[in-house]
């Protein structure tokens, strides 16, 4: 008796799990899973609100992390329908591997800035101060898009007059922590655990208790946010529609309200 009961409970729970994971066959709203770059975290909430309002019967499920982490998860079979990256490399890599449905679409642009805690413990006045001895710089992991943009900006800064020739090496030497994604970098600065960090302007705008130090235009790098529909998606038509909406006037208006620009 007891054994049978246990087996019944076991099979019932397995059926329950199976049901929960069953895709489009289940009744109710259609779920569209969106994997989005960490820097889109605030904007995507508003995108979700407006797009769900405009598209009855659709429920967006959103996961945010570093674009590179999300790409690795998709490569391992994570069931995403749409991938919104903070660069064009990660979507291109998926397309190259045959994991994308259709070409990547650029839908937004972002720029870089430096943030410091409001009390500015590192006394950062210009980007040049990032290379001063003893300044605690927070960065993201090497493979995270923000780090590649930041490295490019640092290289360009080093080429400017009145920047030391070894500016880039000194910047790297000052990095005390490498975070999972750009939002974790912002959190460290908000908590005062670092003196400065290079982040996206949209992150700086959403951060609390931080002050911006501008990066000169000639050294600033535009980040091109690119989306791609995942080949394994069972709802690729809906995913294409959302990507087109994002890249269109309605999506751009929402993204612009968070400080994102239009891609070139």
């Amino acid at each position, binding site marked *: 008796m*007891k054994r049978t009961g246990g087996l019944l409970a076991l099979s019932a*729970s397995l059926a329950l799990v199976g049901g929960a*994971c069953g895709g489009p066959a289940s009744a109710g709203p259609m779920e569209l899973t969106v994997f989005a770059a960490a820097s889109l975290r605030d904007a995507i909430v508003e995108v979700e609100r407006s797009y769900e309002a405009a598209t009855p019967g659709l429920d967006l499920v*959103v*996961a945010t992390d570093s674009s590179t982490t999300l790409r690795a998860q998709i490569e391992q*079979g*994570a069931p995403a329908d749409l991938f919104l990256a903070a660069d064009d490399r990660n979507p291109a890599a998926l397309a190259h591997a045959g994991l994308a449905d259709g070409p990547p679409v650029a839908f937004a642009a972002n720029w870089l800035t430096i943030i410091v805690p409001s009390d500015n413990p590192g006394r950062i006045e210009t980007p040049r101060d990032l290379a001063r001895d003893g300044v605690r710089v927070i960065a993201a992991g090497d493979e995270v898009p923000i780090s590649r943009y930041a490295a490019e900006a640092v290289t360009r800064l080093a080429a400017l007059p009145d920047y030391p020739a070894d500016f880039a090496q000194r910047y790297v030497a000052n990095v005390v922590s490498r975070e999972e994604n750009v939002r974790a970098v912002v959190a460290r600065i908000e908590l005062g655990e670092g003196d400065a960090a290079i982040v996206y302007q949209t992150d700086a705008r959403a951060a609390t208790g931080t002050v911006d130090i501008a990066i000169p235009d000639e050294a600033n790098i535009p980040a091109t946010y690119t989306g791609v529909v995942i080949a394994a998606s069972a709802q690729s038509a809906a995913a294409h529609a959302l990507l087109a909406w994002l890249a269109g006037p309605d999506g751009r208006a929402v993204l612009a309200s968070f400080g994102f620009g239009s891609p070139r």
Partner: protein
Amino acid sequence: MTTPRTRPGLVLVTAPLVAFLALPILVLVARAVAGGGLLEAVARPAVISALGLSLGTTAVSLLLTLALGTPLAYLLARRRFRGALLLETVIDLPIVLPPSVAGLALLLVLGQRGVLGGALEIVGLTVPFTTLAVIVAQTFVAAPFYVRSARAGLAAVDRDVEDAARADGASEAQLFRLVTAPLAGAALAAGAVMCWSRALGEFGATIMFAGNVAGRTQTLPLVVYSEFGAGDLDASIAAASVLVLAALGVLVSVRFLRFGRALDTRGG
């Protein structure tokens, strides 16, 4: 069993470790309570949905462990066979393994490109990065805690009592249900509680194998991590406080099951 008089020197020596272990948790809870925003933070959608997901997945992984782990514990407790020691070592391995290693290993087996990925695809079952993956990760890391405790409890049951019941005509199933299991009840229950708490706290294997999707694979420990990473310290502290309360509940219930008291008297 005489209680030695406590010496002031001993207290001084032990104080740093006690303070070190207690202070972080006290500060976390104090911050959650004093902030005043705890209830509001607990009510956030991310925390609420993670709480539901955590309770649901740990319930299923506990059921799976009880159903599959009890026969295994019985086998290990009752039968002598070649390779028993090796089997016990294999079963205990997840206890000492870093959870991220467990997550990676699960991905290599059950992932879409894993050794069983093709077979699962034929059946139409996708495991990685789904709610099912959360349950698999929890069961993998937590089941050994139950099997260990259950094996010890079942091994401690007096064989004479079982033989007497057999002599009175009890079938093997009746014997287990009416004699062995009740006698080992405290150890079985304590093992189940430890297994559940380990599953509830599972982080590393989950984030590697199941990812971090709100409402689908984002359990409470993942909320602690993601909300902190996203700069929402209040939500992170709220989720952490729920887990501290659950952990306290676990310790109290394990003590209540007299498993802890046996350990106490041994030291006294």
